[in-house]
């Protein structure tokens, strides 16, 4: 008895406690809506709710939606309902926890796009002073390197070349044959439903033969580009390349990662190429020093991938595979993305080097999950990709 959580006396009642429990689960990352709360209450009315074991299993079947959540559920259940007899002050937690966290990320991204943006406004010269206090010296030095590199080394010709290659590439993998057939003027199968209708007027004589075929459906490209220190000298090519991909197709998504993941599709779609580059520079500068490929991919797999990756998605990772995170994290994240059904291509600038072998732990861990591992050292390498992607 002592393990059971005590609830404060002013507490409204069982229904509110379930609401509180759902909020507790939500705060711990389970995706639950109002519908689940109702289902949970309904489920409890069909069992002997006074038995904690039954209640736990019933709530688990309603609230957990995959094996991860099912495995975590017991601990979450215990932490709410069997809190060693401690008094729980408020049953329905204020939304402070969640809101606080959301605010944090919003603040953080705001910082990238606005506050630091003022420091490095496009009018400033390259290598502007970073006078925003102590403790940021190293990060800002890296950032200023990025800054100069992207601004000065990208010649208009290079941008144009990378852009056109990217567009060609996007075209080569934009369509994939669907398996469901649709009416078409020329198709490989008869459209019987129409045929019967048409033959009604000719007394059962099928004079016209409507056909159907498999229509092409779009393949969506999601590109993730590493802009860490070790990738600096390739950043210009890759960013121009990403810009080409993104502008070629409205559905394409592009992300940068370094120590964090930032979406840059909007910035790249800016109609003015130079301003797009500036916006990008600002976004890129918010990042820290080291590379956290594993963390960034994990973040992608858990967040954006849930909505944007399906079986007709091609994920393009541009990175050299030098990572400070444990390699298992990369493998786990890639496996997660793969389960969503996408194809994963990894373009590594180092692979073009003579005698390169993917021996870094991160790269070795990633290899089994990749559909294609290709070199991307020069623009020519990127251009050579198109025929290989078509076959994929």
């Amino acid at each position, binding site marked *: *008895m002592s*393990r*059971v*959580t*005590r*609830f*404060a*006396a002013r*507490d409204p*009642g*069982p229904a509110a*406690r379930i609401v509180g429990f759902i909020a507790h689960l939500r705060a711990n990352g389970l*995706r639950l*809506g109002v*519908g*689940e709360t109702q*289902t949970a209450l*309904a*489920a409890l*009315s*069909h*069992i*002997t*709710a*006074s*038995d*904690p*074991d*039954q*209640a736990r*299993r*019933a709530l*688990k*079947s*309603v609230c*957990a*939606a*995959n*094996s991860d959540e*099912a495995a975590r559920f017991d601990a979450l259940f215990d932490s709410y*309902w069997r809190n060693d*007899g401690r008094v729980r002050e408020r049953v329905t937690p204020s939304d402070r926890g969640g809101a606080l966290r959301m605010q944090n990320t919003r603040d953080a991204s705001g910082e990238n796009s606005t506050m630091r943006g003022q420091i490095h406004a496009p009018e400033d010269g390259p290598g502007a002073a970073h006078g925003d206090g102590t403790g940021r010296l190293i990060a800002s030095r890296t950032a200023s390197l990025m800054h100069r590199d992207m601004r000065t080394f990208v010649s208009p010709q290079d941008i144009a070349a990378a852009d056109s290659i990217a567009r060609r590439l996007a075209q080569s993998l934009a369509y994939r044959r669907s*398996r*469901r*057939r649709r009416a078409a003027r020329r198709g490989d199968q008869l459209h*019987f*439903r129409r045929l*019967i209708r048409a*033959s*009604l*007027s000719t*007394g*059962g004589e*099928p004079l016209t033969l409507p056909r159907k075929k498999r229509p092409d459906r779009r393949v969506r490209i999601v590109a993730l580009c590493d802009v860490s220190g070790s990738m600096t000298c390739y950043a210009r090519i890759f960013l121009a390349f990403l810009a080409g991909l993104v502008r070629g197709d409205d559905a394409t998504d592009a992300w940068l990662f370094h120590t964090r993941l930032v979406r840059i599709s909007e910035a790249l779609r800016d109609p003015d190429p130079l301003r797009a580059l500036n916006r990008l520079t600002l976004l890129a500068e918010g990042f820290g020093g080291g590379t956290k490929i594993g963390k960034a991919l994990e973040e992608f797999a858990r967040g954006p991938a*849930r909505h944007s990756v*399906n*079986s007709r998605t091609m994920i393009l990772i541009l990175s050299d595979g030098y990572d400070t995170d444990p390699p298992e994290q990369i493998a786990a994240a890639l496996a997660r993305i793969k*389960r*969503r*059904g996408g194809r994963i291509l990894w373009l590594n600038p180092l692979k073009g080097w003579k005698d390169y072998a993917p021996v870094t732990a991160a790269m070795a861990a990633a290899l089994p999950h990749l559909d294609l591992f290709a070199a991307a050292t020069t623009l020519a390498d990127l251009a050579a990709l198109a025929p290989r992607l078509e076959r994929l």
Partner: protein
Amino acid sequence: MSLVCMAEGGTGGQPPDPRSISGTVKEQMRMPDWRDLQAGMAERGYIAGDDLAMALHIALALERPLLLEGAAGVGKTEVARILAALKGARLIRLQCYEGLDAAQAIYEWNYPRQLLAIRAAAEGGETGAGVEARIFSEDYLLERPLLQAIRQAEPPVLLIDEIDRADEEFEAYLLEILSDFQISIPELGTITARARPMVVLTANGTRDLSDALRRRCIYAHVDYPDRAAELAIVQSRCPGTDAALIRQIVGFVQAIRREDLEKTPGIAETLDFAAALAGLGINDLTQDPVALQAALATLLKTQSDRAAIPTEVAQRLAGQAA
């Protein structure tokens, strides 16, 4: 110790007798309890874990689809079969695959028959409108699993097997059917379910399912059974087998599952293995290494897995299992 008590009492006094609480509890007593369900399944040879039995109970009580996830060969499909047997309901199965479309999942018109009917009508001098009404009537409709399930007078068990093999579009379509239990056919109008089917979906993680589908379902993860459960399963399915051999078999399979294999054997494989050993007339796993290696064909289904468990390893595992 009880949750309602925690909810009611607050200070944590005596746990109330469940019978005395209120009408809601009495109502629960009326319902077939989840333990009964579990026992009923066990009677028919399916040993369900507590989580699974509870999820099934909740799904039936709330009339929600049940989503079963787990590795291949842990008995997900079997749940639907047993449920159908238990309820005396018809089992309607829809096997999913990539490219599954409405014509195969819901309904299709019987085109050859329609053509013949039009011809016959033309010979008899019938007019167009009458013929049209006739050939797009129910007589000419071919029911596919989903439509079949909806049109049953008695609630059937609808098994949607390996939903993760179908593509996202089909999943979205399925969501619509699972929420309203009605299907519209342009020529006939909307057909609403006469009796709500009990829906069981299975998935083994070929791809992740959409959150929308997961949210609509009651979820249970079916895992490889632990030693005790597997013993019970083999005993109930292979009644003639010697108890000592069954212990050995289960111990051996449990040990093999801990090895690093490409394809971990499921319960179906364990049962095959037991049947194979019975066929080979083996009473002791350690007795004949050659026969054991031969019987392993029922457990290890890839070349690399066969290579990973050579005779010596198999003998060692069998020795430990005894």
